[in-house]
């Protein structure tokens, strides 16, 4: 329901259809969790938006319907949020997650996803080396070739190259599902990368990843998940996951909103803030680690890298140009 006394604050959480993307699920679940605790006098509504048209409608409607805090998550949110925030600076407070919005009334939280990818890349190189393929090829099944997956792709490459500097572009194989849901295709892509000799294949195509995981289980190559901890007792080949704790951010936002109110600025979150990381490296997952492959020394090496990133000794660069070469 949407009728409520003024004391109760109303939060609109606008997103692409939840479900296909674990980092959306995390955020929405956290929101519900906060609500359940009754910590704050709040109501919330998850507004799933099929297409960018629906996005605009929902943001506009959220203002019309008098929501006090409007959170948009995903790249999609940029245009509609910026436009509305510019038009109604005072009608509500605005936050974008995962994208820096063009409008200054909006607080933006973005992620240094590349840092997580960096760790996985290093892990890939180490594991591959351990399995007798120091020079790769290293695989990756991502969503699309565009800027969208640069952080994961280039972070991954950077990480691998810190371990083995003489890796070249040709030592990496990347394929793209162009869909968050085509698990069958993802699996097929993984299989063909495996056939080309990849011992480690980095999965970064939302729920389609399950296809890659299944291929790993079948063929016995190693892989890693994305966003939410994908390791599983049923599948020892999923060595780790490049996590992106959107739940944490959601909590930050809600807290800030109720304590101080939203202060528009652009915040970048990474390993240092405990929002980005890799399972077993920056935090221990819920499932037992595959210690035969992901041995302690490998983990230690990775932890070292993680610390270097924390204290700024290493900064992972992900250029925006399509022409990323070394």
């Amino acid at each position, binding site marked *: 329901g949407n009728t409520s006394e003024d004391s109760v604050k109303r939060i609109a959480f606008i997103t692409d259809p939840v479900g296909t993307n674990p980092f959306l699920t995390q955020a929405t679940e956290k929101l519900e969790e906060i609500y359940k605790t009754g910590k704050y006098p709040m109501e919330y509504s998850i507004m799933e938006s099929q297409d960018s048209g629906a996005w605009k409608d929902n943001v506009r409607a959220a203002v019309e319907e008098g929501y006090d805090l409007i959170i948009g998550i995903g790249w999609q949110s940029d245009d509609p949020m910026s436009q509305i925030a510019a038009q109604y600076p005072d009608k509500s407070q605005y936050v974008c997650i995962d994208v820096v919005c063009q409008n200054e009334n909006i607080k933006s939280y973005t992620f240094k996803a590349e840092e997580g990818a960096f760790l996985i890349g290093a892990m890939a190189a180490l594991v591959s080396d351990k399995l007798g393929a120091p020079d790769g090829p290293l695989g990756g099944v991502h969503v699309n*070739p565009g800027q969208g997956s640069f952080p994961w792709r280039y972070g991954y490459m950077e990480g691998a190259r810190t371990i083995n500097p003489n890796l070249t572009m040709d030592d990496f194989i990347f394929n793209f599902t162009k869909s968050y849901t*085509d*698990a069958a295709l993802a699996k097929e892509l993984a299989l063909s990368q495996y056939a080309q000799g990849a011992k480690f294949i980095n999965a970064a195509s939302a729920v389609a990843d399950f296809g890659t995981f299944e291929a790993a289980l079948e063929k016995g190559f190693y892989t890693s998940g994305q966003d939410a901890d994908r390791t599983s007792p049923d599948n020892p080949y999923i060595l780790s996951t490049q996590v992106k704790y959107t739940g944490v951010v959601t909590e930050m936002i809600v807290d800030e909103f109720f304590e101080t109110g939203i202060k528009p600025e652009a915040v970048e979150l990474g390993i240092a803030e405990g929002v980005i990381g890799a399972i077993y490296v920056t935090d221990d997952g819920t499932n037992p680690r595959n210690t035969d492959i992901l041995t302690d020394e490998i983990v230690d090496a990775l932890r070292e890298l993680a610390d270097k990133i924390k204290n700024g000794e290493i900064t992972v660069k992900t250029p925006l140009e399509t022409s990323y070469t070394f």
Partner: protein
Amino acid sequence: MALDIEFIAHILNSTFRLMTPILLVALGSAVCNRVFIFNIGLEGMMLTGAFFAIVANYYTGSVLISLLAAMGSAMFVSWIAGIFMVKFKGAMLVVGISVNVLMLGATTFLMQLFFGVKGAFVHKDLVSLPKVNVEFLKGTKFFYTLFGSLTYLDYFAVILAIILYFYMFKTVSGFRLRSIGINKEAANSIGVDGDKIQIGAIVFSGLLSGLGGALLSMGAVTMFVQNITSGRGFMAMAAGSLGSAHPIGVVFASTFFGLAQTLSNVLDNQFLSSELMIATPYVATIVALAIFNYSKIKKGGKITNI
């Protein structure tokens, strides 16, 4: 990448795996074409099969029952579609599109209802279609890879095409099936119920789509992901058309698609930009159809792809 002999084996193997789900559905589409039904709802029917295969799979753990569930559910949906297309004379496209939208929504919705998850349902207890054991080929790596990790249903798809060929061109009911597409009125005038045959064809295409879906959710992978078919149903229609509604032709057409897909997988951003790579199968279809029809027209033949 290294184009060694074994990798070629992999390409062929992968082609086959990618081809079969399309083939099954394409055969359904072909049957529909034969009775002058343009069934764009195949995508939705395939999705239905893929989903209920997993539902049954989860609750019974029996491959057989899962397959039956896949076929049954898809047949039910296609029966509804058939009634609307034939009896109520609803525009085939509207019915088909509606079915697609409806089933995309319904499967996603039911997935939450049954499994309490959105997006993807994966579970260790899900059984996958039995794979044909090729251990005896372990000696010759080429064949081992070539025939590796294929389910019985993959092979059955091809066999089915052959069976369907005999059905269409050698049996009486196949004969009547073809007659409807040529002149339904004439069939009715001699007391052969054209409507029944058309609906029958649609339901049969549902059965095949169901199998195709199951092959996707229990063969290619063992899970259900919302919209897992992602356009394969439409591809299948194109294949049915490219194969000019002839079972054997459809096999070639589907293989062609499978190969196009595989190549676009392995060649991805090696030669062509990957966006163009995805576009190729569709452009290729048009070109292939054009060439195919052109040669046929030259021979003064009839074009059967409706």
